[in-house]
Structure formats: C-alpha cells, structure tokens
C-alpha cells in the first residue's frame, strides 16, 4: 500500500504526521509525568502547609487551589478543541480530529471538577451548593456542550467523517460560548441584584497567588500529559481497527 507518498512540505506537518507524532511523543510521556508529579507535590505543599488563611475566605481559600485550575482548564481544553477543529476543517490535518476526540472527555472531567469544587466553595460562602450565578451557570452549559460532543463522537462509526462533522459542532459551540456567557450574565443580573463572586482578583496577596499558580501549572501539565497519551492511544486504536478490517477483507477474498 503506497500510504505515505504525499510530500511533506515543512517541518510542522512532518512533526504532526501521525507516524512521526507517535515516534517523538513517546519521549514526552515520562518527562511530562515527572513534571506533573513534581508540580503537584510543590503545589500541595504550598496549598496545605505554606499558605495563610485569607482574611475574608479563611481556610476556604484552599478550595480555590483546586477550583481555579479546573475552571481554567475547562476553558483551555475547549480552546484546544476549537483550534484542532480549525485544523480539521481548514487543513484536513489527520492529527487534528484525533486531538479533538482525545480532549473532549478530559475537558468534561475538568469542567465537572470545576463545578464540584465550586459547589463546595459555595456552600459555606453563599450558604448553598448551587447558585444560579453567571459563572457557575455558564460552566454548567459548557459541561453540557462537552457531553454533547462526546455523545456525537460515540455515535459515529466512520471516525474520519465524525472528525469533520464534530469540528463544525465544536466551532459553532466556540462561537456560542461568549453569547451564552453574556446571556446568562444578563439573565443573572435580571433576577438578583448583584453578583456575589467578585472576590479573588489580581489584588490577591502573593502568599495565595503562588500556590494558585503552581497548582494551575500542575493541572495544565496533567492535561498535557493525558492529552498526549490519549492522542497516542487514539492513533494506535485507529491503526488496530484498520489492520483488523484489512485482515477481514483479506480473509474474505482468500
């Protein structure tokens, strides 16, 4: 089979070719894993042992160290998916839809964690687990979008076609998320006087900012690690499926 005859014009598409990706990403897994573990260790040490209580939030500030990174990842992962959707639609890049498929469940889990920690933060702060606050609500909608995309991935048999169709859905979702955010905020101000969630901003003291940044780094590294593993798995899975199909075809013609 003359598979790889198409010329590879530049270094990027050479590196991003699935076979090449498998070759070089292998050396990424262990360094990423070690870096992730180290930054989690440092981050947790800061979070529990080496940071003071916040004068407003008290010890609850420690929930922020897991809440904020997950909230950040819930959006970063969607950004990664939107970029890979562009890669699928514009350049028909074979790695792009793999990246989209790999990222969707990760994004869903991080978003769910952001909601979970947000609810635990909200109980002592607002007196309720769930508040129809603008940020919480749009995060919930984001989770629904992730789940829809995962459902769509599972519904398709032809993964190549699925990749391009889901890229369209991902991009439409990306265009819609700001609109949803805006409408939810608008709706929120309509129904309650002011948003409670105005604490935590750039005026945070360094003692709180440091663990927060380290934990964000740790979670981002975790995402990168899982994303690389999942992309490798997905490429190999497609290869395995192609091989067994070919074997079936050969068996049929013998």
């Amino acid at each position, binding site marked *: 089979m003359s598979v790889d005859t198409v010329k590879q014009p530049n270094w990027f598409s050479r590196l991003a070719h699935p076979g090449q990706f498998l070759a070089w990403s292998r050396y990424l897994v262990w360094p990423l894993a070690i870096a992730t573990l180290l930054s989690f260790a440092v981050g947790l040490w800061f979070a529990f042992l080496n940071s003071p209580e916040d004068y407003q939030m008290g010890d609850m500030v420690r929930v922020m160290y897991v809440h904020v990174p997950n909230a950040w990842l819930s959006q970063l992962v969607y950004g990664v998916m939107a970029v890979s959707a562009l890669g699928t639609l514009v350049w028909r890049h074979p790695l792009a839809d793999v990246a989209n498929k790999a990222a969707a469940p990760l994004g869903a889990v991080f978003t769910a964690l952001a909601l979970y920690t947000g609810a635990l933060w909200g109980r002592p702060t607002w007196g309720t687990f769930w508040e129809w606050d603008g940020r919480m609500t749009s995060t919930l909608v984001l989770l629904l979008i992730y789940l829809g995309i995962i459902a769509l991935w599972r519904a398709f048999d032809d993964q190549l076609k699925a990749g391009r169709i889901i890229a369209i859905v991902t991009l439409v979702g990306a265009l819609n998320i700001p609109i949803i955010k805006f409408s939810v905020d608008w709706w929120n101000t309509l129904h309650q006087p002011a948003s409670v969630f105005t604490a935590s901003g750039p005026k945070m003291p360094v003692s709180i900012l440091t663990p927060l940044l380290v934990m964000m780094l740790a979670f981002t590294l975790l995402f990168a690690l899982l994303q690389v593993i999942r992309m490798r798995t997905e490429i190999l899975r497609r290869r395995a499926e192609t091989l067994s199909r070919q074997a079936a*075809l050969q068996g049929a013609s013998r």
Partner: protein
Amino acid sequence: MTLASGHLGSLGMAAMNQPTPVSEAFQPHLSVSGLTVRRGERLLFAELTFTLEPGGVLLLRGPNGVGKSTLLLTLAGIVHAEAGTLAGLERTELHLLNYQSGLKGRLTVSENLKFWQAMNGANGLAVEAALDAVGIGGLGGLEAGYLSSGQLRRLSLARLLVSERPVWLLDEPSAALDAEGETLLGRLLDAHRRRGGIAVVATHHDLLLGDKAGVETLILGGAA
C-alpha cells in the same frame, strides 16, 4: 483479492477516434488527472487519468466493491479526492443518476419532474414531452409511489432530459429496466452524444449504443 487491487496505476486515456460529428449544443471536455481517492484508509484508486471529448462515453467496469460508484461520486464532486484535478465538471453542468432516485412517492410524476426542472434549470424538454420520451407519457397525474421500479427509473431518466446538461454520470442506469427500456436508454445516450454530451457510465450490462465510436472502457480492479 490483494489490498492493492483497487490500485489502478497510471492510466492514460483519450478518445482517439472521433465520434460522430456533433452538433454545437455543448462542447464539454472532461479531463481527470492524477485522481486518488481513499475510503477510510483503503486506497480505491491512485493516479487515475483520462479525458473525454464531446460525444465521448466512458464505461466503468469491474467487480462489486471496487469503487465504480465512488468514482462517479467523486466526479460529481460529492466524495472528496485526496489528490488530482478534475476539469470540466462544474456542479451545475452535470447530472447524476444512481440507485437513489430523489423522487417523492407522495408527489405526482409530473410534480416530481417539475420540481427537478425548477431546481436544475428549465433548458431542456418540457415535462410532458420528457415523460413521453421515456415512455411513461400517460402517467403524469399518478403519485410516484405507485410506479414500478422500472417506471421510476424511466422517470429518473426524464429528469436528465428536462434540464440539459453536458455531462451525465450514470450508475447502473439499466437496473430495473426491461429490454425495451434498455433500447430507450441507448437511444437517449446516443441523442445526448449527438448534441456533444459526455457520459460516464458504470454498468454490468452492455449499453445498446447506436454508435460505438468514442466509447472507451475503464476496467477498475483489473489486477485481481
């Protein structure tokens, strides 16, 4: 069957002998070069090259599953080609006829035909004349759901007549047609070629063409 059986290798084809002198209705030149199409990971054909002059017919032959229908869909611009150039195949310059009729059972025969005439351009025969031409002239008021499959196929052929387009892509056009229908199909193709039209036809039957000049045959999957 080996994996590479769909692999055609380079295949240069040009209509060598001039077909019957053609009227100047249209002068299409269909030219395909370096066409490579993949279904999933399976390579159907690579580096396929051929040209058709006005009045030319290309017959696609080969066993089932070899990619005849896919080639037609690629020429029709529906399946994406991995590589290669297609010239002379404007979206609005071609008719596709395949196993799916695009006809609605709840609409009458002439409503169906009028619809496709409106969609594809009313530059061919009138609806009644086209129905007469394919031998279902009296059935215009009948709901298409009551037609037999042979009659449906004739109605599909009438769709090609109400809007004149230079390129016909036909997938098993004689399926469900009786002997008289096959003669009719040959006559319609002859008339189409006399006006300068081109046809690419995937078929297992021999077409009953009046004039064999300019008819080329492309055998797909011949390596097996």
